[in-house]
């Protein structure tokens, strides 16, 4: 048995005591084995110290997804975090050099708090979840018996199927902090679960919808928070990147958010120059190719005009005071024959497009895992023809 202090963020809007109606911190001392969970600690505090302490939980085994909270600032499941580890992490972050640090427990972020550690999942998580039509929309009438799909065609959706809807990723999402309307990691990972399903008949429509929503797949800032938060290794951000790849590259969707044009501007830029021609990247992200320049979209003109003050400031301080930085396309290539070798890499990789799936083969999978076995082209062909 060890002693721990849980510093809990509380909120009791119905309390009769004036000082408890706003959010406040309260400390609870608990005594438990270090291998028991923070949830066990919270339940001991509730039993022994204050029965009004509200926390949502059910299975206590990281399956039901009920007990999402923030522990030491990290969104996770209370039942999946051991007290001993949490105390060590608290001490490490506090940089006090001792092991006596308090374990902080807060309700999940990006959601309204109902009471103490219980958040309103309905108004955020579930609302966003429904936004992506999270069920199968098959093409044509159902088969007489079950749908038959090749096993390998389901490999890439396995990871998103593992989601238990706990909301930890939503809680941790840094884009959503800035844009509460962002569809978000959980819902977009679920969208990929159906986009990648060969039985679904609305693949292009789903992708078109989420690519063109200003709060859709291109509103993710690629911060990896959801990857670290997810207790089931769903890596929602990776599923969002899969959506982007499918939308722009495989389904040819030219979104209004400049998402695909930015990606392609970057890809072409390195093929041509080896290192980034920033002004070209910027200009091509808004107005790609000859067509983009002859018939620019209103949003492209606005984007480019909006950037003029920034450019002028850059010229004034000397940051951008050079011809290659001011005139797109003047940027130098790599020295000697290096650029030719970069082009050769493009030719070969754009031909084979291998995608290793580390969720399936494992990071230390090594030697016997075959790259070809996880090559997803077959999957994508299936989904395109399904």
């Amino acid at each position, binding site marked *: 048995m060890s002693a721990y202090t849980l510093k809990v963020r509380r909120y009791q809007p119905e309390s009769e005591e004036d000082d408890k109606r706003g959010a406040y911190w309260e400390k609870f001392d608990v005594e438990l084995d270090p291998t028991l969970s923070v949830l066990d600690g919270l339940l001991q505090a509730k039993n022994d110290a204050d029965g009004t302490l509200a926390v949502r939980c059910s299975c206590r085994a990281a399956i039901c997804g009920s007990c999402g909270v923030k522990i030491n600032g990290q969104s996770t499941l209370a039942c999946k975090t051991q007290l001993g580890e949490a105390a060590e992490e608290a001490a*490490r972050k506090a*940089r006090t050099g001792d092991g006596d640090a308090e374990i902080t427990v807060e309700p999940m972020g990006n959601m309204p708090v109902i009471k103490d550690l219980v958040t309103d999942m309905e108004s955020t998580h579930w609302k966003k979840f429904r936004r992506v039509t999270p069920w199968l929309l098959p093409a044509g009438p159902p088969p007489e018996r079950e749908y038959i799909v090749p096993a390998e065609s389901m490999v890439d959706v396995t990871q998103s199927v593992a989601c238990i809807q706990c909301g930890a990723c939503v809680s941790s999402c840094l*884009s959503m*902090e800035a844009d509460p309307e962002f569809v978000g990691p959980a819902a977009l990972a679920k969208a990929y679960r159906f986009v990648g399903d060969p039985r679904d008949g609305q693949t292009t429509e789903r992708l078109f919808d989420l690519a063109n929503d*200003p709060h859709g797949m*291109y509103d*993710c*800032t*690629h*911060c*990896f*928070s959801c*990857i670290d938060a997810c207790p089931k290794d769903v890596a929602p951000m990776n599923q969002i*990147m899969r959506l982007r*790849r499918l939308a722009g*590259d495989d389904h040819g969707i030219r979104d209004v*958010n*400049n*998402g695909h044009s*930015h*990606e*392609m501007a*970057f*890809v072409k830029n*390195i093929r041509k120059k*080896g*290192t980034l021609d*920033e002004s070209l990247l*910027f200009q091509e992200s808004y107005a790609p190719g000859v067509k983009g320049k002859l018939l620019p979209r209103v949003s492209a003109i606005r*984007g480019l005009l*909006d950037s003029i*003050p*920034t450019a002028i*400031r*850059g010229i004034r*301080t*000397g*940051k951008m005071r050079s011809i290659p*930085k001011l005139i797109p396309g003047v940027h130098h290539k*790599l*020295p000697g024959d290096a650029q030719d*070798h970069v082009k*050769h*890499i*493009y030719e*070969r*990789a*754009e031909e*084979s*497009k*291998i995608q*290793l799936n*580390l969720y399936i083969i494992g*990071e230390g*999978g*090594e*030697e016997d*895992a*075959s*790259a070809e076995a996880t090559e997803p082209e077959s999957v994508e062909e299936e989904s395109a023809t399904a």
Partner: protein
Amino acid sequence: MKLAYWPGCVSRGFTPELHGSTALAADALGIELVTLDRANCTGAGVIAEHNQELADTLNARTFALAQETGLSMMNICSTCQGAQSECQERLDADASYRAHINETLSGEGLAYSKDADGFTNKNFLWVLVEDYGLDKLAEKVKRPLEGLRVGPFYGCYVLRPKTRLGYDEHPDRDLYLEQVIEVLGGTVVDYDGARRCCGFPVITMNKETSLRQAGTHVGDAIDAGADCLVTPCPLCHLNLDMQQPEAAKVVGRDLGLAVLHLPQLVGLALGFDPKQLGMPKHIASTIAVEDRVAALA
């Protein structure tokens, strides 16, 4: 100490002061840098979004160029670190995949070796703490930055995901900026934004979301009493510094906080003049920081 050096694109583009200040700081610290001038862009995660094999091969090429020198590799950009670590994770996971990639590289006489003797690729921040050593850094400090209140800003790509970025072996990588600030004599400012996202990756896709992030973090640091921020990532610098006046409009408040590149902060403590370190090139004025440092000398 001698390292193969990948400067990245932005450090020679829109943040030229980063490349310059790195050269000065490294030289003063006695770190010899062998620039990989044939190496290519890491793809910043964007090329991997388009085609993983393409990104993996491009970065395998850079690793192979570094391995040819027999040295470990250093970068000065969180985003380079994250993009390269992502590719390295896949390259290291599967021998047949690696063989396929190396076949592509063979025309240039290059090959990436997973088990090359002690080969590592580290951001300048990681090099400073893990390989150079904070004790040795402390010895080199000529002008302790006493009274300078510095807010750390890491950049997502050196923080997450932890499993990929070597946190098993080096669990304190998310505290190194604090450690360096203290060794240089400065005071660490705690504020909400230190480990959040600057918003840069969506600047052309959703400018409002992007600048709201940058503006919020700069504002929080000001409210916490910071004299400046310090970052190991030039892309964060673009959003926090270059876009700061635009970010101020989005969050509806005055900002005006200097954002230093990590080698600039190190350089100040090593005794370099702010001008030598390129600080006047910044958009958010660095004059308050310069005055403070001048008062120390």
